[in-house]
């Protein structure tokens, strides 16, 4: 398959699906969200198509997967075109001199960084441990064997030697990312630097999509630009882009797209955004085990937001009940993330004061004592504290913070009160879980400092009036 096609087809299929849900983009930032968010969704969509259409023979990837993806993308765009309304988009205010200057600085700083990261990715093979031990191990075996053999437990694998199957330590981990890697390997075969370039694409797409999402939620232009720089310059985000092979940045991007679509749906009552959320919910657990937990949180938030007025008083109880139901269903059907949760929480909570103290100290060091997050974890609490009177009036900011607080509390509980505390103390996992929240954390910082709907829009939101963000 042509190298350009490998990158362009995810853009076409993802953006086609996106605009089929949200309608023809009318404003500049809507285009950004549709194209950049579309690429982020389109890459795993191509992975899914690989699994469905070409599992038995990967030489069929270009003809079957490529053609189907192009068809789906075109149909999506045609549908959006046919359903586009007559209204002309509002003319955006021209950029001020200061905004031009800020945009130039941000582009230079991020462009320079992107150049360094791109050069680095193309130089080295896959380096990080879990990348070659888990996420790329399956994909490499499939690509070199030419078909997708199922991965089974060690016992099943050895007990049935005639079965066309494989095994691995992480045989039960979600396979969406390995399928996606197979897609990116469809040009040129197994060339690690080339495959890992997908992480640079993800970094770029995430930044563009975030700008669009923040602007669509009425974050001021200069603040959105600053937010893009803050997110794009975080050392751990850069490390994940430059090293490639880990799944956390994909999960962060998909979760952020879902949460921002949820915020837009709650604010504007635009059910088309709800379609995006509903489309992303099943993708999260397919990417990584903890994606199931984030999916349940986001799903419960959707139910919470869809409740009729009469049930609003019981919304917290209903949201909890929905989450409990999802967990119960996962238990009944033996979904893989439950096994992981049982593994860590199975022996009951860790109540040893020494261990808890060490975990909290390590967690604090991870947030404030290392280079991972630049000044994010200093500035965010300060902004929330100092600007509380402003952001408290903004329902969008309040919703984002509540939605973010739940996974952060879960992460805190996991790394302080369970057997997973050893991973906090070794810094081997805690920052990667926080990375999954990073776009939302940067968004929270922007919303706390410049609450977009603190005044008029807040009252509109209360009234449930569809409201368009000003350009």
């Amino acid at each position, binding site marked *: 398959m042509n190298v350009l096609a490998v990158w362009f087809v995810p853009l076409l299929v993802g953006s086609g699906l996106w605009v089929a849900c949200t309608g023809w983009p009318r404003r500049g930032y809507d285009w950004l969200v549709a194209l950049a968010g579309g690429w982020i969704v389109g890459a795993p969509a191509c992975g899914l198509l690989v699994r469905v259409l070409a599992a038995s023979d990967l030489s069929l990837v270009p003809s079957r997967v490529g053609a189907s993806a192009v068809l789906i993308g075109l149909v999506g765009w045609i549908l959006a075109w046919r359903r586009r309304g007559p209204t002309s988009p509002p003319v955006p205010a021209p950029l001020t001199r200061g905004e031009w200057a800020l945009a130039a600085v941000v582009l230079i*700083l991020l462009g320079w*960084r992107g150049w*360094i990261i791109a*050069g*680095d990715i193309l*130089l*080295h*093979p*896959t*380096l*990080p*441990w*879990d*990348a*070659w*031990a888990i996420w*790329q*191990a399956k994909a*490499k*075996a*499939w690509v*070199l*064997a030419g078909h997708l*053999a199922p991965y089974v437990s*060690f016992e099943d694998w*050895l*007990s049935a*030697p005639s079965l066309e199957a494989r*095994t*691995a330590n992480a045989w039960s981990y979600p396979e969406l990312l390995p399928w996606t890697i197979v897609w990116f390997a469809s040009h040129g075969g*197994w060339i*690690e*630097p*080339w495959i890992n370039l997908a992480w640079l694409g993800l970094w770029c797409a995430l930044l563009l999509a975030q700008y669009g999402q923040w602007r669509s939620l009425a974050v001021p232009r200069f603040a959105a630009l*600053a937010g893009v720089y803050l997110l794009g310059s975080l*050392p*751990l985000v*850069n*490390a*994940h882009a*430059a*090293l490639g092979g880990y799944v956390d940045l994909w999960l962060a991007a998909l979760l952020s797209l879902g949460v921002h679509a949820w915020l837009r749906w709650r604010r504007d009552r635009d059910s088309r955004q709800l379609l995006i959320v509903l489309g992303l919910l099943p993708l999260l657990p397919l990417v990584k085990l903890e994606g199931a937990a984030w999916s349940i949180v986001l799903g419960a938030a959707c139910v919470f937001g869809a409740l009729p007025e009469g049930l609003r008083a019981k919304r917290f109880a209903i949201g909890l009940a929905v989450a409990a139901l999802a967990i119960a269903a996962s238990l009944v059907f033996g979904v893989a993330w439950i096994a992981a949760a049982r593994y860590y929480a199975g022996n009951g909570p860790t109540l040893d004061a020494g261990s808890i103290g060490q975990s909290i100290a390590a967690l604090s060091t*991870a947030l*404030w*004592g*290392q*280079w*991972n997050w*630049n*000044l994010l974890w*200093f*500035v965010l609490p*300060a902004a929330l504290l*100092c*600007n509380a009177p402003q952001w408290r009036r903004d329902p969008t900011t309040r919703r984002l913070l509540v939605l973010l607080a739940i996974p952060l509390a879960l992460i805190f509980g996991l790394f302080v009160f369970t057997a997973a505390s050893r991973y906090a103390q070794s*810094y*081997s996992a805690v*920052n*990667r879980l926080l990375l999954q929240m990073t776009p939302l954390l940067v968004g929270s910082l922007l919303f706390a*400092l410049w609450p977009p709907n603190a005044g008029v829009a807040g009252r509109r939101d209360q009234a449930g009036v569809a409201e368009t963000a000003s350009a």
Partner: protein
Amino acid sequence: MRFARPRFAAFVVAVAASWLLLVLWAAGAGWSTPPLPQAKRELAGRDFQPVFGTAAVEDGRLRVTAAAEDQSALQSTALANVVGEELPILRYRFEDFPRTLELTLVFRTAEQPDDVQTIALPWPGDGESGFDLSRVAAWRGTIIELGFAEFATAQLVAPERGFAPFTLVSARLESDSWLGRVRALLTGWSLLTPWQLISVSAIGPSEIGDSSPHAPRLPLVLALALGLAGIGARILLGVSGRRLGYGLLVAAALAWVAADAAWLRSLAYKRSVDRDVWGDLPLAQRQDRVFDAGLRDAATHLKELLVNEPATTRVLVDADSPHDVLRLIYLASPLNLGAYGELALAGGRIPVPVGTVLVRYGDGSRLRPAGNRLRIGKQNVRVRAMEEHEGFAVYRVEGVSP
């Protein structure tokens, strides 16, 4: 907004003084520490002798031209009358030091002469670098030997590719001083380290979490500096509320960019290391140059040996460590591989199918048949050697009896 000149001057002086104190605190300097070093022990390159590797004196400096057989190099010098507590600041200068090598300080004390202490040092670059040894618990007592050791960068560079000739220009031990400590702090903040396995999980000067002695890192110090400036503005300038908030926001933005500049420099350095390691190869061949070349060669050989095997043939591998097992599985892909250790863990409960291939890599593997018999739990497995050397062996299972 305009401030009265005396107030503003007081603010500037107070903030400058508080920042100076902050930097001294971060550097670990105490009140009794003099600003400049009072005593020094100069060591020219010619004072060092090669212990491992080849080196010769050139113009008073030591030119190290070759590594030893194990691809490491060590240059050391005997010391007399050096007490660690009295000379805790190390300054060192190298030239042409390759980015593919790690630098380690090696020393011994008279109190424990058989105990060789090693401390990882920041990459020296071309200028003079500093390191604060007062944070190292072992740097106590009478130092009788001091040296520098060089190894190929771990987890990144194959040992045989790490070395390139370099020059040890000089080293210096200094008594404690503000200047020495601050210089060491700045060297630590320079973040010139290559990518390592932990880099996707935590990023620090040594990228090994917080197990090594270190000063507070730059983001924390910048945040504290912002806090001090905020307190100064509140007390001395009377600024509060939104104006104080906006001022601090602008200052935080500048501090963020400053920390980011250090990180960008580090990012560019990491790319330079990678360019030195892989830059001479075409794109498609870069994945074949790995730091564990022995595993790669074993994997390649295994694939050649089993090239005609059906895809369903189970291949169980064992090696010295879980890391080596996983690497072998990855590098020998697409063979149908699993970890022999899981079979051993199951205590032989899972029957081993006839035709299974068993692979041993490394000297520490448990996979060692006695003759053509191998005991796995309660199973007595009859094997045939397809290839057998001390560090690498391949067996075929030909029969299993309880």
